[in-house]
């Protein structure tokens, strides 16, 4: 019998509002502890929440982007539990009437097919603060800067069957929320985090196995590792005749394993009930349609357009369409260079490599899309060779100016003067008599490969600037003349 994993995900996307969901305090990341917590966030006696309508706009946009039912009346509920970084003793959330109902997204699988993953619901809620254990021996510090930050909790159907599918889904949601501009998607700062519900069963069975929930994983790689590890752990237990305990687990990235946090028996009774301090949020068609008209192009549509408009491969189109900034960069580069395929190769190759190595965001790349496009233009018009182009890119990355400026300053212009090339070719032939003799005595069909040696020498002599096509043509002409003489 073959095992099958069943995976459902809960994603918490921090909405990119300037102020908190129920107070006017700033949501900016990284401030000194408790400097961005006002009376409402501290839950001082007598304070009351006031809903930030910007969070509603963002949630509805997401609903429209995943073709979901929109909750025309949504209601905030209180989820009651005690924790020191939960100032009110309850979290304001939406249980009974969420703002976004059933929707779906399409994910691309490795075999090139797509799969539809259902989204059960997405609801608005407030984040808690942070408990700081390490800084204070034998005490706990409480930082309430994050308390009240708006979150959109996106709950999937248990539609995924492997860690790879789960990651593809998370990446798709990530690309949607960042494209909509409703979440900055910064996983290391916790703006986008994921709880993974995993169970296993024999393939073909309908009943779900007992599931575990692994909390707050904050990178795509960790999500994949945590799910893979959890699947193996559960299968091992079941194959040994054990049973899976329904529990909450934590992923330890250092040890690459999950461990138990609390079991179902210890779970809270959250005593949800409608928050009496907040009125139900009622929206109408006009509001929804107005928002629909502001929807930006989404990754799936853009991918299709890239294939159609630029003749990109499925894979290139998927990668380049995923994020608005990346897509925009690619399109600008392609338009300036007048060559989409070349632009795609450079954006996904040299540019991505540099961004990753330097931990740069594409929006802060020292080489702008226009600069890259102009560089590619110089390859296309034979001003430079592809090899030199990489050297120029390095210089541009280091802030030494535009492609033309670097070419000029470093004298990297390709040599196309046939007289100059001919003299270099003659010099190389004269200086390498043994190799010339070998060439001359070789069978004609072996000679093609032997030209490479002379090519290398000439290009070296020209410091890479000689036009390779011209060099090759001249070498062949002259060597063959020697051989045939």
């Amino acid at each position: 019998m073959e095992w099958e994993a069943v995976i459902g995900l809960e994603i918490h996307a921090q909405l990119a509002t300037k102020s908190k969901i129920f107070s006017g305090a700033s949501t900016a990341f990284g401030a000194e502890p408790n400097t961005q917590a006002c009376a409402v966030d501290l839950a001082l006696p007598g304070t009351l929440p006031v809903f930030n309508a910007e969070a509603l706009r963002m949630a509805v946009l997401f609903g429209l982007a995943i073709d979901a039912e929109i909750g025309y009346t949504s209601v905030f509920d209180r989820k009651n539990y005690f924790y020191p970084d939960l100032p009110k003793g309850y979290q304001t959330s939406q249980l009974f009437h969420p703002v976004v109902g059933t929707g779906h997204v399409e994910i691309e699988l490795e075999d090139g097919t797509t799969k539809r993953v259902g989204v059960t619901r997405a609801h608005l809620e407030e984040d808690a603060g942070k408990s700081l254990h390490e800084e204070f021996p034998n005490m706990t510090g409480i930082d309430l800067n994050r308390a009240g930050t708006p979150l959109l909790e996106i709950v999937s159907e248990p539609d995924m069957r492997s860690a790879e599918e789960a990651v593809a889904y998370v990446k798709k949601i990530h690309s949607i929320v960042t494209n909509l501009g409703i979440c900055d998607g910064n996983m290391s700062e916790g703006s986008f985090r994921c709880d993974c519900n995993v169970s296993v069963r024999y393939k073909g069975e309908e009943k779900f196995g007992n599931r575990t929930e692994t909390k707050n994983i904050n990178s795509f790689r960790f999500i994949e590792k945590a799910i893979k590890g959890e699947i193996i752990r559960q299968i091992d237990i079941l194959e040994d005749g054990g049973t899976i305990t329904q529990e909450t687990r934590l992923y330890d990235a250092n040890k690459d394993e999950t461990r138990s946090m609390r079991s179902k028996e210890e779970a809270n009774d959250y005593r949800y009930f409608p928050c009496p301090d907040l009125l139900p949020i009622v929206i109408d068609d006009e509001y929804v349609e107005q928002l629909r008209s502001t929807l930006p192009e989404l990754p799936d549509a853009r991918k299709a357009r890239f294939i159609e408009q630029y003749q990109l491969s499925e894979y290139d189109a998927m990668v380049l369409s995923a994020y608005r900034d990346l897509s925009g960069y690619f399109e600008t580069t392609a338009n300036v260079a007048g060559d989409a395929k070349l632009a795609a190769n450079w954006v996904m190759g040299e540019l991505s490599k540099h961004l990753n190595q330097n931990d740069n965001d594409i929006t802060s790349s020292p080489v702008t899309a226009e600069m890259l496009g102009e560089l590619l233009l110089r390859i296309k018009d034979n001003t430079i060779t592809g090899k030199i182009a990489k050297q120029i890119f390095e210089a541009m990355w280091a802030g030494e100016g535009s492609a033309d400026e670097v070419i000029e300053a470093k004298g990297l212009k390709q040599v196309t003067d046939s007289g100059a090339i001919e003299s270099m070719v003659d010099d190389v032939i004269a200086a390498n008599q043994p190799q010339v003799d070998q060439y001359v005595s070789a069978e004609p069909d072996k000679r093609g490969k032997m030209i490479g040696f002379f090519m290398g020498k000439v290009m070296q002599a020209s410091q890479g600037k000689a036009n390779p096509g011209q060099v090759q043509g001249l070498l062949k002409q002259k060597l063959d003349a020697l051989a045939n003489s």
Partner: protein
Amino acid sequence: MLDKTLAELAQGLATGEFSSVELTRNYLDRIRAEDGSLNSFITVTEEQALAQAEAADQRRAAGDADPFTGLPIAHKDIFCTEGVRTSCGSRMLDNFISPYNATVVENFNRAGAVSLGKTNMDEFAMGSSNESSFYGPARNPWNTECVPGGSSGGSAAAIAGGLTPAATGSDTGGSIRQPAALCGITGLKPTYGRVSRYGMIAYASSLDQGGPMAHTAEDTAMMLNVMAGFDPKDSTSIDKAVPDYTLTLNDSLKGLKIGLPKEFFSGEIDPQITAQVQSAIREFEALGATVKEVSLPNTHLAIPAYYIIAPAEASSNLSRFDGVRYGYRCEDPVDLEDMYKRSRGEGFGEEVKRRIMVGTYALSEGFYDAYYKKALQIRRLIQQDFVNALSEVDIIMGPTTPHPAFKLGEKTSDPVAMYMEDIFTISLNLAGMPGMSVPCGFANGLPVGLQLIGNYFAEERLLNAAHQFQQATDWHRQRPVR
């Protein structure tokens, strides 16, 4: 000077008969002399009051006075006051100095009112006798062996005792009207949403409403002018223009239709109270009103529904008092759970803990539908009762309480008997409509209250009716013998 109404004091300030500083000193002296026996104040803010009075006198001299400028009041200790202890009658907040003002407090400050201090109350507004206060019970000035009612008992006692001409109160199930009735003063619970709840420490958010307490309807109208209005900080406050409530006080009552709910005149009710209320109704008839019987058939369900909804909300509202950020924290907790348990166990009194337990139970998994959801359904029925009755009449009238003030300690061992004292007031909070209590006589030497109930935002009509009644009677002029 100290037996005058707010309106009369305003007149005295306007004519220069006395200054706000003189007036304020008089009240502060009186508080010092008398409050030892009444215990109506938790905190007296003498210095601040005198500074405010001085500022008010200067403002008047500059020709910039509002009708309220220089008038002394007191705030129920449920309203947050910047820089002043705001205890809510609880050990939990005995050390809490609020860093901000409630909107109601802010409104009075802006109008130039002088705050004498913070009045005693049942802990977190949970009680009908003021006996659940951490600071000990306030006493009824008409008989200090008796309770002043609750939860705004300190405000009512202070006014009746002449320690302040007026005070703020809050009413979740009768907490303005019941102590007003028991102390022989006038109190108004406005329509839910008329007065901002921001900074008024929440007991049961969907029922809580702040309101004015004073000697007369005219005085409460003057106060409501200051208190009422939309507040962007309170999502449940209603954005509706505020009339000048003093302008319609003298309208004629000719043709006013009064409804008497039969459920308010039967069952466990002191016959002397019924008699006084009936005589008050005759007074209204003499003023031109007509009277008919109406029915509020679900009245008997109000107390059970209230004691699910209010504790459920309270159990959540009071979760913030956890000893972490402010308020009482137990000595040397061994761990987090110990800190929670002892801070809350020691910081809250018996009645508060009882209601937290009841509310927690009512919201628990498996009980929600049977209790909380059912109570909400009853709430809608009760609301519909009032809507129906008020489609036939302009004002519903009846007794505010079934009995006059009872003895201290008389009902403390029997919570349900205590809860029953709110039988005529509680249903109105569930419906959200405005109600008043005005003095209408005495039973065994203790004041009796007449309750007036109106439709949503009918405060003008209630105040008009109450004022006309007070023009024709002098129950509101009676003062306890000192």
